């Protein structure tokens, strides 16, 4: 498995491909066809062609996903899990096929290790509630949870809540100047009291790819469990939980070209088996009596209530789409986009790239000297370019970086080198106007 997404090409080689985006793609990667698969991209914004560079917030959907969702509603929709009628069987089977698709996407051993959730946030909250508060697995006073300085609020606040409730301590693993995790500090912070370590696979601000396998090894030597926020990794990297060695892995459907409101949590089978339910309701029970209830085995134990049926089916269609394109081909193309963006933006006087980790994926944060990121974002929007400006739900990281906010351009499999050029030209214009 390759977790490096930078193409091997040297800077000069990349530069020669500028301006001929479609032609520059590898023969196996037909960018024009890919773009044609995404109906939304063919529109204008403020009279200019849309350039969508906010993929880290959410990605657009290929026709295959739209069709899968519409097809579910049109042809075989019913509630899942308990119907004896034909439609219920079809819908249930489609959702379980979707679970199997997620299993292959993350490299889990069995589909029982895949819990459908609403997204990464819910997945992490599930672990914090069920594992973190379970009778057999839960935290006690004095225990420790480690997070990193680059975590999204969704991989920080659930742990703060847990620690407050349990009298446990939250420790923060710092990052270095490049925006890489300080592994020496992680080693120092790991202790016999460490119970849970929560790490982003890819930082949503810095783009840093964290060495999850190495971290997992360190964490397991201390007998703790590793929870990985894969929201920014799943769209860009090949995820293989067996090779990563993590205990939990969470990702969102809407960032991998699937629908919003659906995501998945991978949990190691024996951990899920030891964890209590976190929400009660239909679908998660074995036998219910007023005197007491026994619970279904994982993953149903963690899926109370009527689930997002069409979401799971849409997610599977998105993963099919990604895997048909080829995760490696996508990663190579996005690596070129990222490298070209870093070169173009990095060459503009007064533009500072935020984060220079040796391994990065998917996105680029930057600052324009003397211009607030919100002004950058508004001006780019006026030019048809969608980026994100703000703290990116990582306020503590903004403090570490000593910036109020950044502008973030994030790439998807349909972006072109021409779009990167347009971004760079627009940022140059921003500088001129506000200077």
């Amino acid at each position: 498995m390759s977790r490096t997404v930078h193409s091997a090409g040297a800077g000069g080689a990349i530069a020669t491909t500028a301006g001929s985006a479609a032609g520059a793609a590898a023969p196996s990667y037909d960018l024009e066809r890919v773009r044609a698969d995404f109906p939304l991209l063919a529109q204008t914004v403020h009279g200019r062609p849309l350039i969508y560079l906010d993929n880290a917030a959410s990605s657009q959907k290929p026709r295959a996903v739209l069709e899968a969702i519409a097809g579910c509603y049109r042809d075989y929709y019913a509630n899942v899990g308990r119907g004896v009628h034909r439609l219920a069987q079809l819908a249930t089977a489609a959702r379980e096929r979707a679970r199997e698709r997620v299993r292959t996407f993350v490299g889990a051993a069995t589909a029982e290790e895949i819990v459908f959730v609403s997204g990464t946030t819910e997945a992490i909250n599930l672990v914090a509630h069920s594992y973190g508060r379970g009778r057999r697995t839960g935290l006690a006073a004095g225990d420790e949870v480690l997070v990193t300085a680059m975590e999204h609020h969704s991989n920080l606040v659930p742990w703060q809540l847990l620690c407050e409730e349990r009298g446990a301590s939250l420790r923060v693993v710092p990052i270095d100047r490049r925006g890489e995790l300080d592994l020496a500090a992680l080693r120092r912070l790991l202790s016999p009291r460490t119970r849970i370590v929560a790490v982003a696979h890819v930082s949503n601000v810095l783009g840093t790819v964290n060495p999850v396998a190495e971290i997992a090894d360190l964490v397991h030597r201390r007998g703790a469990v590793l929870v990985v926020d894969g929201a920014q990794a799943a769209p860009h990297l090949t995820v293989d939980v067996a090779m990563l060695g993590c205990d939990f892995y969470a990702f969102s459907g809407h960032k991998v070209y699937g629908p919003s409101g659906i995501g998945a949590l991978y949990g190691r089978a024996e951990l899920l088996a030891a964890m209590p339910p976190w929400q009660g309701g239909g679908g998660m029970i074995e036998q219910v009596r007023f005197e007491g209830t026994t619970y279904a085995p994982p993953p149903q134990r963690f899926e109370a209530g009527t689930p997002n049926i069409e979401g799971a089916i849409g997610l599977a269609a998105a993963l099919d789409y990604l895997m048909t394109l080829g995760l490696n081909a996508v990663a190579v193309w996005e690596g070129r986009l990222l490298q070209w963006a870093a070169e173009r933006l990095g060459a503009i006087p007064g533009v500072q790239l935020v984060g220079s980790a040796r391994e990065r994926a998917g996105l680029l944060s930057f600052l324009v000297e003397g211009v607030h990121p919100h002004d950058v974002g508004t001006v780019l929007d006026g030019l048809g370019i969608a980026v994100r400006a703000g703290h990116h739900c990582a306020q503590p990281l903004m403090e570490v970086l000593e910036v109020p906010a950044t502008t973030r351009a994030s790439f998807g499999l349909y972006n072109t080198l021409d779009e990167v050029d347009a971004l760079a030209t627009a940022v140059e214009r921003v500088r001129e106007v506000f200077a």
Partner: protein
Amino acid sequence: MSGGFGGFGGLQDLYGEVILDHNRRPRNFGRLPGASHSAVGYNPLCGDRVEVYLRVEQGRIEEIAFEGVGCAISTASASMMTEALRGKSLEETRRLFEGFHALVTGAPAGGGAADARGGAPELGKLAAFGGVGEYPMRVKCATLAWHALQSALASGAAAAPGSGSERESGSEPESGNRGATGSR
């Protein structure tokens, strides 16, 4: 000189030359020694922070200044607010804020159009912020300094800066100004 955003997808409506100029060279920027009132406006969502200082005598703003960091809209708004308010009575200040707020939210002026025409003071150069109404996400930028001003005035006339008289002020839900102002 850049020439602004002429021809740039309507951006010149938001970033007019007056606004760009005040962003480049904010007026009345810095602390105000001898201020009678002050308060901090803070927008945690974008990290903007502006501190407004006032010297109020006999119900009139004799001196006003600000400092802080923010986007072009919030910086220019603070700068132009200080220019607009020097010498104004507190009642004139209140009506100017109402008129300005109505302008940037695209809402009709507080008491209706007749009131706006008859009662509100001329917005004058502040009319440059008329384009903000098209950008709902930026309304809170334009009003940040004004909310800080309100907070400072509400903190009590007897307050001396740094005397511990600062207070949190309520924020305006309709402007999305969550936690817009806080104590210093």
